[in-house]
């Protein structure tokens, strides 16, 4: 990953929601990566989805009404 600043992470209520979101993005061929939640973010769910800012809108649209999203935050502090 060249530029950490170009990424956001999407946070979910629980791991199962993150996995559901991951499946949807896979099916829609939208680039994403399931990663452990970065240290600076406090989230109870251990994993989140990292997406490039260029893809963010498309990703959020794909997940809309399908998976509850808790929060979207920058990858870096």
């Amino acid at each position, binding site marked *: 990953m060249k530029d950490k600043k170009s990424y956001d992470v999407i946070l979910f*209520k*629980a*791991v*199962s*929601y993150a*996995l*559901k979101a991951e*499946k949807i993005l896979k099916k829609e061929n939208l680039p994403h990566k*399931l990663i*452990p*939640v970065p240290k600076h973010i406090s989230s*109870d*769910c*251990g*994993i989140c989805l990292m997406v490039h800012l260029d893809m963010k809108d498309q990703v959020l649209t794909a997940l809309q009404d399908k998976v*509850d999203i808790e929060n979207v935050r920058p990858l870096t502090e």
Partner: protein
Amino acid sequence: MSIIYFDNAATSWPKPPEVHAAMQKYLKKIGANPGRSGHRLSVEAARIIFDTREKLVQLFNVDDPLQIVMTKNATEALNIAILGLLKPGDHVITSSMEHNSAMRPLRAMEHRGVNLTVITCDQDGLIDPVKVSAAIQENTKAIFVTHASNVTGTVMPVADIGRIARKHALVFCVDAAQTAGCCPIDVKEMNIDLLAFTGHKSLFGPSGTGGLYIREGLEKRIEPLCVGGTGSRSESEEQPDFMPDRYEAGTPNTVGIAGLQAGVDFVLSEGVDQINSREEELVKTFMEGIKGLAGVTLYGQTDTHKRTPVVSFNIAGMDPAAVALELDERFKIMARSGIHCAPSAHKTIGTYPQGTVRFSFSYFNTQEQIAKAIDAIRKISRRKK
């Protein structure tokens, strides 16, 4: 002489080899607690459970995998549905063919002020939807009915009852312990709001697995029975209100669910229709083979199309337990005898309190085994004469 296992309605055996392999793989290579941590093994474990939900929704025609609550069996699922939904003053309708896993929680709620109507089924164990309609009152909240009787194998007209429930805006809960995996189930077409299923019968999972499908939104009306750690919302001392965590406190049976996933996969790849028709052939041969034998009484519908691979019978003048013992000792045929956890079902078909001998077949039984069983029953009944 090898063992002939005809007790699949209690727990199916053998399981497809893929089920053993999936459980071993989890134990050897994954092992972690699902959904509690961010490391890869924990995520892998969570994935097993998510994928299992996905396969179950495919089987039952549910849209959202997160509407499936994993439980330890159908009994737990039914308890969540019954104890969690009903309140004093509610009226509920059920059938006289229910297993105790539904009947006992319903009776328990009756003691707490729920009004219960038990519709008496006919001699073959079939419910008449017209009687269900007629039993509806102003305060009726729900209908609980088994998809198929574990005593007679009678498949209930759940689609008809589902239409009645929908028309009157009642919650429709189906006990699919005997049908999930061997009879087609479509929660949308059948208007099912709550579907309780178990993993260790026709879904070929290990014991300790099962689940409850809850129609989206209905979770708001169902209190959880068991609350505690879920791996989510850990900052809060209140139980999460979202699906499925609301009902899934405590570390799940991940190794069992890994096996269940492989079992459901097996069912999906063989196809419920194929499983159903092969099992129907076994039932047909068996019923044909014993119906003419002197002293043998068969229970349930004669139309094999309307039953699961469960056949109850008796031999005149013999205690069902003695028949089952002789089948085991002389013929190595494993059957169940007695009341099968459903006293009211036996009252309905006239076999209370002695019960019946029950054979229940699976996809892994063969026509050859059926032939041996017919021969064994012929020998036992002839000697008795």
